[in-house]
């Protein structure tokens, strides 16, 4: 049984155009389903605004889903800020993109790493102090950092502190929302390793949200590609990146800088991603897809498994229609 199961998640936001304009409904998430087993890492990739972070917040129950439901550990997700929801926080944690923003600048690091233990009443003061020291050591900080304030640490050290705080109560699920994209390239790998080691050691389920395909490939057991609030492709990271099935994934993969390849092979997508408020009919990607046929504009492709187990939401990839011309 999977630890986390999300089915048909829909999240709508309302936005008003102008002072008296009509209200537009934006479907930030449009039927996202995913499963995560204990000890497994699912990488969630896509361009900004595609709903990756919203998915992360919804599976944690930080926001209610407008449709669909989340099941965690066999029980449905309680509503936000209810006592059951608060108790559940000890079992699921989030790592934010901006570690300086996620830390209280008035409290020393040690007190903040200890905080989840205090909130969830784990142990007495002495036991908690020992646990904090162990946690700091686990993420590669030394005991001296406990008395420091967030502004006295470097970006990488802050993110380590945030990871230590997230690990404090021994959670089963961690959602990491772009945990390294605010960091210097030179320390991204270190922080990534800290996260990967903690995941392996504690058997965590990790939902890794990122726009960096290479990092996702490095840490994930499975990868899901999102476009405009939907998952368009899901499978083994190596297979997906070597032989992408969806045309959007192909464009994403070809955008990975490669030293030995000429730029001529890159697929450059035309135009901007459409607004979720004005979703194209049929496959949301068809206006930008080089291989789109008439069917693509008419029918929404379903996310369904191919023979090799890869899930793709594309008429052409499933052979429901023949491409007019070969994509680059």
């Amino acid at each position: 049984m999977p630890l986390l199961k999300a089915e048909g998640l829909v999240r709508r936001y309302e936005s008003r155009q102008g002072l008296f304009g009509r209200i537009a409904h934006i479907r930030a998430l449009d039927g996202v389903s995913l499963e995560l087993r204990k000890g497994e890492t699912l990488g969630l990739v896509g361009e900004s605004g595609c709903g990756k972070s919203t998915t992360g917040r919804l599976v944690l129950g930080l926001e209610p889903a407008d449709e669909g439901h989340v099941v965690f550990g066999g029980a449905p997700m309680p509503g936000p800020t209810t006592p059951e929801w608060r108790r559940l926080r000890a079992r699921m944690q989030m790592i934010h993109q901006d570690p300086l923003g996620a830390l209280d600048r008035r409290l020393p690091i040690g007190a903040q790493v200890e905080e989840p233990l205090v909130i969830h009443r784990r142990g007495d003061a002495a036991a908690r102090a020992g646990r904090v020291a162990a946690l700091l050591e686990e993420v590669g900080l030394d005991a001296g950092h406990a008395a420091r304030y967030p502004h006295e640490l470097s970006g990488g050290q802050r993110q380590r502190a945030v990871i230590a705080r997230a690990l404090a109560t021994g959670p089963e699920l961690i959602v990491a929302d772009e945990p390294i994209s605010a960091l210097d390239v030179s320390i991204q790998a270190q922080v990534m390793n800290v996260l990967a080691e903690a995941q392996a050691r504690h058997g965590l389920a990790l939902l890794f949200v990122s726009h960096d395909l290479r990092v996702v490939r490095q840490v994930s057991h499975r990868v899901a590609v999102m476009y405009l609030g939907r998952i368009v492709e899901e499978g083994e990271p190596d297979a997906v990146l070597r032989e992408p099935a969806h045309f959007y994934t192909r464009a994403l993969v070809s955008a990975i800088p490669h030293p030995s390849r000429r730029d001529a092979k890159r697929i450059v997508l035309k135009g901007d991603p459409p607004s979720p408020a004005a979703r194209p009919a049929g496959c949301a990607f068809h206006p930008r897809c080089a291989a789109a046929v008439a069917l693509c504009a008419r029918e929404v492709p379903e996310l369904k498994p191919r023979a090799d187990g890869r899930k793709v939401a594309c008429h052409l990839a499933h052979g429901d229609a023949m491409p007019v011309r070969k994509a680059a």
Partner: protein
Amino acid sequence: MSTALAALPATTRKPRATVPPMVAFALCWIAAMLAVAATVQWIAPYSYTALDLRARLHPPVFMGGDWRHILGTDELGRDVLARLLYSIRLSLLIAFGATLIGAALGTLLGFLAAHLRGLVEQVVLALADFQASMPFLILALSVLAFFGTSLTLLICLLGLHGWERYARISRGLAISAGAQGYAAAVRQLGASPWRVYGRHVLPNIASTLIVSMTLAFPEIILLESGLSFLGLGVQPPETSLGNMVGYAREYLTRAPWILLSPAMVIVMTTLSVSMLGDWLRDKLDPTLR
């Protein structure tokens, strides 16, 4: 936790900065004022109502008077020093009380608005707008005229002064902290609203609120003076600093000393509070240490 912190090498702690002389002076002044307020019935040379009709408008020592009335006497022969000391007690009680009431009420309403949003927020904001657009003196006059003047009512009424500033500040800062930053992170850890607001949001916005309080403190002293002068604040024979200044205005040319000493106390106290607030704000912020 505290034992673990204490055991750490001292290198992580910076040497304690010395208190700047102006702040030291402000601290001493406020301490002296508080000491006076606490012990006035024992240190005042006379009762504040005691008349000495043969020594009316008697000048103070430094203006050619004698030591019986160090700061001189007023038009009824009441000792200015005694009245000044009693005035300090009443004015400090009103100013501190009203400032604290205003800050507590405003911050509470601001947090409620930020936490509950929706209708509660609309009501709080509407009230704040109403308060800001209404000349406070008119509101105070009408309330005091209808309900009569009592010290408790006066303090509570002056406490209403400026609450909308605290409410707006705390609401805005709490919302911004809750949307993205540390407050959202702590809520996500499973913290109760009490913990989020009490332990994280309040200490983080305290510096802004303290500055706002140091601005409100002199305003309240002046407001109290104005109300007393109009006859709706502190009622004679009770006396406050504003009250003394108000009644001494008529004798400004003949007996300026009656007005001089309370005016000086007002200036020194408000200045001290401002300096202390400024220093406290820097002191409370670990990033500025």
